[in-house]
């Protein structure tokens, strides 16, 4: 038996000695991945048997899979046996003690983004006991949500308190063996968010992981499940515009959305993980599977994303439009600067009658970056009256970057109408000249033009996010011109 699995055995026996309700503060599994690790994670989290079985099934399937190679991204192979798949919240000892210890570059970015002072510490991972403002916000909104009947909690909490909902919906949109990274996530996911909006309820506020304090450090294998029951509606914000301190290099998250009859889910993401330095050293690998299923009639799922971070982004938020008259939307701005690589897009699978989808994707490449839009629109024979409109535009800044567009349009119903438009160009010299001539600096001019280019996506973002996203864009593109 290998030493790794011996470690796991030891750990498991240790856990048994202390019983199942150990305080897991100092638990951390050694690097490596086998069934023992999967079982250990499930036991640490005191999960019911069905979930452990599900994890093991996913793990066994993962072993038979190969890492996908079709994306236009390049990276050194990941050694999956060299990763620790469970670590308890980081000990305060590793974290900076105060803002003085935080990288000044990071602080400068917060300044530019206009992040309130008390939040800078939290974002930078400063070991403070609690951020009082956030706590008070958290408490008040929890009361409000409970009154409306909305369940919004961490995934682990949901497993404990609402196992029937988890068992019913988990893996029904992204099956355990869906793809390499989704299977890995299904086997070892650490935590994440869970939202259930009961029938007829319009969620009284926008939900955000940013303010859900118990979601802190959910780690690299995050799992999110959002269910909007009949007639319910919810808007969910993921991430925040400020760069988060994070030392995990590989992120393989899974997000599943379920919209029943007449339900609406709006999912907005601002992803700003560490992109690596100017020379492409370091940075997060972000391999995410996001999919929503419009299961009911007249349901709607809308994805909005602003992707500026990560060294590699591999992400295709998709909609399966099963219900009659259901609607899927995808609005995306992906910015890649320096040596970043982004391969992102969407899938719209039309199954139900009169289903509609809209795709607006804006890609910006600068420096040595590569930005790819990859999207599929599939109209099945049952989807009569289906309609899709796709627009994907790329903007190039600099001689060494690249932009790619790979759409797949597959139509099998003669009653469907599908339109696809794409364009690629650099910033118009005439536009730039016009601004410079009026005394606008080159950098401001580029920011203006870029935000005009992205306007159709930004207007889909919740208001406060939209303002921050604009700032974020200019920070991301710093140094790309001039």
């Amino acid at each position, binding site marked *: 038996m290998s030493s790794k699995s011996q470690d796991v055995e030891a750990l498991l026996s240790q856990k048994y000695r202390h019983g199942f309700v150990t305080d897991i503060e100092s638990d951390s599994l050694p690097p490596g991945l086998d069934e023992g690790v999967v079982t250990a994670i499930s036991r640490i989290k005191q999960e019911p048997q069905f979930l452990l079985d599900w994890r093991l099934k996913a793990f066994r399937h993962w072993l038979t899979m190969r890492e996908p190679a079709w994306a236009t991204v390049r990276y050194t192979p990941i050694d999956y046996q060299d990763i620790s798949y469970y670590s308890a919240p980081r000990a305060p000892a590793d974290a900076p003690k105060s803002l003085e210890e935080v990288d000044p570059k990071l602080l400068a970015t917060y300044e530019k983004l206009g992040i309130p002072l008390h939040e800078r510490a939290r974002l930078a991972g400063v070991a403070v006991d609690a951020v009082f403002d956030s706590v008070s916000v958290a408490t008040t909104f929890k009361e409000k949500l409970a009154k409306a009947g909305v369940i919004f909690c961490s995934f682990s909490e949901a497993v404990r308190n609402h196992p029937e909902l988890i068992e019913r919906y988990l893996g029904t949109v992204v099956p355990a063996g869906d793809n390499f990274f989704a299977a890995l996530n299904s086997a070892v996911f650490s935590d994440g968010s869970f939202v259930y909006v009961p029938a007829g309820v319009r969620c009284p506020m926008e939900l955000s992981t940013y303010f859900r304090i118990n979601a802190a450090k959910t780690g690299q294998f995050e799992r999110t499940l959002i269910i909007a029951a009949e007639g319910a509606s919810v808007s969910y914000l993921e991430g925040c515009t400020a760069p988060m301190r994070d030392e995990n290099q590989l992120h393989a998250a899974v997000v599943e959305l379920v919209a029943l009859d007449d339900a609406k889910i709006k999912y907005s993401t601002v992803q700003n993980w560490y992109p690596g330095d100017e020379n492409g050293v370091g940075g997060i690998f972000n391999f995410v599977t996001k999919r929503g299923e419009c299961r009911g009639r007249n349901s709607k799922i809308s994805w909005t994303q602003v992707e500026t971070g990560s060294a590699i982004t591999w992400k295709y938020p998709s909609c399966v439009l099963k219900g009659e008259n259901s609607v899927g939307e995808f609005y995306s701005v992906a910015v890649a600067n320096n040596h970043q690589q982004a391969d992102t897009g969407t899938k719209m699978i039309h199954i139900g009658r009169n289903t509609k989808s809209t795709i607006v994707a804006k890609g910006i490449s600068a420096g040595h970056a590569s930005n790819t839009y990859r999207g599929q629109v599939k109209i099945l024979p049952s989807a009569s009256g289906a309609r899709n409109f796709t627009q994907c535009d790329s903007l190039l800044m600099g001689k060494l970057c690249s932009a790619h567009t790979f759409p797949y349009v597959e139509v099998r119903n003669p009653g*469907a109408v599908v339109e696809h438009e794409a364009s690629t160009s650099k910033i118009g010299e005439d536009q730039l000249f016009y601004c410079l001539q009026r005394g606008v600096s080159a950098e401001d001019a580029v920011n203006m033009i870029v935000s005009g280019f992205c306007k159709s996506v930004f207007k889909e973002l919740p208001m406060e996010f939209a303002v921050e996203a604009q700032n974020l864009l200019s920070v991301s593109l710093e140094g790309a011109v001039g």
Partner: protein
Amino acid sequence: MNEPANKAATSAALRSFEASWRARPADGLAAMRGEAMQRFLALGLPTPRDESWRYTNLRAMAAMSFIDAPRIANGAVTAAPGESWIAGAGMSAIRILNGYPQLGAGADSGLAHVAVRSLRAVAESEPKVIAERHTAAAESEEGRWTLLNRALFVDGLHLRITGRVAGPILIVHAANCPDGSHAVHSRLIVETGPGAAATIIEHHLGAGGGTLLANRATEIDLAPGASIEHYRVFSGDERTTQFDSVDVRHGADSRCRQFTVVLGGALVRTDLRAHLGGIGAQHDSYALLAGRGARQIDCVNTIVHAAPRTTSNQTARAIGAGSSRVVFNSKVIVERGAAGAQSQQSSRGLLLSPNAELDTRPQLQIHEDDVKCAHGATTGRLDPDMLFYLLSRGIERSAAQSLLIYAFLDDVLTGIASMPTRRAIEDALVEELPDADLLRSFR
């Protein structure tokens, strides 16, 4: 003699290709053939896991064994395997039967500025002309049928165009095979001198009798300032599989207008690879893809902008009727350094039947910032407003539909510069549409 291939052939089709290759003479091209065959066998038959073959499954073909179509001697009297309907007054036609050109003695085509030779004659006298040709296109996975063609071609045509050629050069590819599964691997090489100009029409007919696999390759080299209008028209019967690749290499300021018209065949896979390697070169491609019955059409264009100020325009119109499947897959690559490149693409599909499928993949790969590239793709049904307009004027529904389908294809048809060719293609197209009689009365 030929060395055995490195990798064992794994399907009946591959084994039969390998057997055909072993039967090739040990002439000056043997080394080239051997290398191409080994690479082809290493790649194997494409599967839907290959990105460029995602929509075309060759499983049925893999189980078949093909033998070379029999050679029909020059001037031999044969049962006519169908006539080309393009041949018009003043057109000079060269007939290629089962891959063997039916040429008179000498290199006289009857046209000024064109020297025509059979590829077999070239292979015998100057094998280097063929063996040393640049083969970058065939390096890619997409070029695997071109590789097989290199390994197995026995004959074909070599055209050398040195000036402005007055009329169109019509090349009719016909086959006359007995029952069974036959393969024809023929090749056309076109070389141009600076400033040369010509119109070349390749008309692919089907085979009488058995099942035919026609694996053809056309290579066009454009010298600086040369201009070629190239047509390939497919009107084979429903037992013909056509793999047809056209490689165009552009010199500076050269121009090519390339038309792909598919009106027949069971499975027609067309590859077009245009390499814009000369400054200021321009490539315009047009595709008219009529899917009908159980036909499968897979049209793949790859346009590479490798030099500054190059331009490409693509126009594709596809119709899916019956249980047909029509694929239009186009890739525009702008390499670093190709500043000022401009690329436009418009592809539109009309789906007429619940059992048909249209798949479109308009791809862009841009490695240069000084570019203007755009594409637009639509798939849909006939515009109900247009239909209503015609119906309200007392035109029968079926006739109105035919008219609108015909109008839908107009963008490609009007691009055809040679009037007799356009007329002939229009006539053939009308026959393919519902209510052909009515439609004819409108023309």
